[in-house]
């Protein structure tokens, strides 16, 4: 199966292509140098051609996502998707049903999505949902920052942590390692309250020790994606110091910080937050080993869902509305609170402003990439609007004027921050950058050998409209979206890591399992073919 995308303006930053008129050739699911002259073609003149979008941090599958779905029938009933000859039916809202999640990502031109927080114990659940999430290749990150069995190892046998991490990834089909408020969730589950610094002790370890041990393991394993950290003290005024402390703890090892916006606050704990985005942007710029996604908040309805259960407890007391808490033995917590960001609210407007500051002050778009931490800061459906905020200064200034004045004055957004992202930069923060940070060599670019995941947009002055309705989306060489309509539904691959481990680690872990889990050690690893296939393995050992 071949296809020539002819005459489009191509943005392929990974290969140094910035808006050149050229053809992109696809054959058998891959980008190739050339296809025969009589191959089928798409006339892409007047269109912008980019690799398919790559979402480095979203919450789309697994028990917490499903708990949020179940929580919000009132959102679903007004947003339904009909069954068609090619589509399953479903519902939307901030947390759409699985099929609708896949369709809507594709309709937005995204072809690869990372589920950012899976409890290992629930891997089967997350995998099953991903199997029902069509259109996208998907990977998930395993929650490892509050795992009592790992804490045990960190205390008693730190040399084995590396093998344990690799075992966990292999046992579950995971792609990378996520730390969420390391130590803090376990401490909170014990009734001792959240941690407030990296040196608070929980179960005989400190957040700093957890960070060092797990980041060290990920580093030594040479996983394609570095340790993905949701820092301690999320949302707390003054937390930017914790964020810097976390990065200092890495001692030169790579790390990716999730939703940096939520960790960029000055001020005193308990007081009004201030922006420390300029300092963090500066720090990030000077440290090439670090990267982050922004976690932009967008005004309107969102669904906060996190393994950081103590944060949800705070949000519960703010909203007084629905709240879900779900403790997972040994491994993690989970909290869910529906949330609405309002432009007139000081804190919300400040959060919104901090996200924009991070984007606009970023020196290296390859290392500060786009996310709303879907659906925490807003739905992935708001990406086109976010792109317009970055690309269209007039639009942004108009929005700034509507937002809470005190908050915006606390940012540098009014200080001649007139940067407008270029299409090339957008291509970096929405595809090339995330793919590189994830170590997905076949994603996020259009060089020969890349996956034939391509999105074509009409080059329209309203960038929100442009990015909301791609003209064509091609997944694995097949046209799946044409003129804003889904024309083919297909299943994506699971992207999982291949990281070897010493088989003896099983004996070490087995004892710790029998002691702590209520499932048998032999029940734990995912073996079901329907959950694991089709998959592509990305080998550890050769980081990008």
């Amino acid at each position, binding site marked *: 199966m071949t296809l020539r995308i002819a005459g489009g303006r191509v943005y392929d930053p990974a290969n140094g292509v910035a808006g050149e008129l050229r053809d992109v050739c696809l054959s058998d699911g891959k980008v190739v140098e050339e296809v025969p002259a009589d191959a089928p073609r798409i006339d892409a003149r007047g269109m912008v051609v980019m690799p398919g979008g790559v979402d480095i941090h979203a919450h789309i599958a697994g028990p917490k996502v499903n708990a949020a779905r179940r*929580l*919000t*029938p*009132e*959102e679903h*009933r007004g947003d339904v998707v009909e069954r068609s000859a090619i589509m399953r039916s479903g519902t939307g809202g901030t947390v759409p049903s699985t099929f609708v999640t896949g369709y809507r990502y594709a309709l937005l031109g995204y072809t690869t999505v990372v589920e950012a927080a899976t409890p290992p114990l629930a891997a089967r659940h997350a995998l099953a949902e991903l199997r029902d999430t069509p259109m996208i290749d998907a990977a998930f990150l395993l929650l490892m920052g509050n795992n009592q069995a790992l804490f045990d190892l960190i205390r008693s046998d730190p040399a084995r942590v590396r093998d344990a991490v690799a075992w966990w990834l292999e046992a579950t089909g995971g792609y990378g390692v996520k730390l969420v408020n390391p130590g803090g969730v376990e401490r909170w589950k014990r009734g001792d309250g959240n941690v407030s610094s990296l040196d608070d002790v929980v179960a005989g370890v400190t957040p700093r020790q957890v960070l060092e041990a797990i980041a060290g393991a990920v580093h030594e394993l040479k996983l394609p994606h570095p340790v993905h950290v949701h820092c301690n003290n999320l949302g707390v005024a003054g937390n930017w110091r914790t964020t810097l402390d976390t990065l200092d703890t890495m001692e030169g090892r790579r790390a990716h910080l999730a939703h940096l916006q939520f960790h960029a606050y000055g001020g005193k704990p308990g007081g009004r937050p201030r922006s420390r985005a300029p300092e963090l942007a500066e720090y990030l710029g000077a440290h090439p080993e670090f990267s982050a996604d922004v976690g932009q908040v967008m005004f309107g309805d969102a669904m906060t869902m996190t393994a950081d259960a103590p944060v949800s407890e705070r949000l519960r007391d703010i909203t007084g*509305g629905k709240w879900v808490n779900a403790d997972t033995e040994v491994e993690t917590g989970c909290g869910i609170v529906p949330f609405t960001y309002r432009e007139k609210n000081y804190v919300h407007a400040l959060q919104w402003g901090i996200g924009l500051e991070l984007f606009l002050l970023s020196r290296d778009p390859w290392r500060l990439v786009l996310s709303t931490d879907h659906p925490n800061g807003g739905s992935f459906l708001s990406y086109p609007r976010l792109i317009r905020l970055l690309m269209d200064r007039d639009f942004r200034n108009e929005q700034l004027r509507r937002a809470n004045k005190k908050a915006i004055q606390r940012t540098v957004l009014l200080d001649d921050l007139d940067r407008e992202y270029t299409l090339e930069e957008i291509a970096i923060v929405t595809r090339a950058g995330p793919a590189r940070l994830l170590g997905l060599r076949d994603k996020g670019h259009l060089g020969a050998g890349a996956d034939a995941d391509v999105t074509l947009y009409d080059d329209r002055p309203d960038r929100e409209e442009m990015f909301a309705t791609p003209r064509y989306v091609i997944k694995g060489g097949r046209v799946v979206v044409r003129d804003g309509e889904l024309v083919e539904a297909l299943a994506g691959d699971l992207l999982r890591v291949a990281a070897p481990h010493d088989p003896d680690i099983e004996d070490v872990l087995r004892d710790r399992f029998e002691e702590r889990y209520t499932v048998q050690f032999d029940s734990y690893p995912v073996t079901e073919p329907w959950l694991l296939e089709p998959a592509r393995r990305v080998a550890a050992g050769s980081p990008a």
Partner: protein
Amino acid sequence: MTLTLTLREAPAAPLRAEALCPDRLAGLSRAEIERLELWHGNRRATLGELFAVSGAGAEDVRVVGDLGRVAGLGAGMTGGRLTLEGSAGPHVGAGMGDGELIVEGDVGDWAGAEMRGGRLIVRGSAGRRLGGAYAGARAGMHGGEVLVHGDAGEEAGAGLRRGLIAVAGRVGAAAGLSALAGTIVAFGTIGAHPGAGMRRASIVAMTTTTLLPSYSPACTYRPPFLRLCLRRLRALGLPVTDEQIEGRYTRWSGDSVELTRGEILILEPPR
């Protein structure tokens, strides 16, 4: 001019009839009305297949027949008058914004659920969750008036945020469940645990019942607003007695496990 839709025969499966409200019919010719689509079980059917259409106009619409299997009649209507000459199924007048909906018979569950305005009059009895909130929603009825001449089922006015629900007959258990504000008046007996989890609303009862222990008596008095309210209900045709208008009510305040801004007013027996 009155437009009359007469059900041809008892439908073989439940019918969803959100299309049958004055707004949606406005400006349509008879042929267009007959071509309107309804869901009949899992099949599409045209209105004309199921209803005989006569008359014209959309300001005054009558639907005639045994409508017990017809759901959503008048749901979302924003004006005009809709009269149902027979008993109707669930979701009658749900989400209605304005206009008048009169049901000569009984209605099923969720009549007037989440309605925002207008008036719903039920000559017969209503099912559960009258003027209530749908699954997951915090607020039920946001405004308007619901008058029921017969009885009402459990959880009437669940999540009530604003507006008035008045029931001439019996009201089931847990009336005003988690209500936020607004008024519920029960002229017949009222079931157990009215106002469970209620924040600000008023429930008026003419007989005593099992109250939750999180309600406590505050005073016995003649609430001025209530006289106005009851006179109005009498004018609207509900059987309100002078004793009820003139009587003294004991005010129970609660729900203390929520905001404690709600009240249950219970008519004192005449001395």
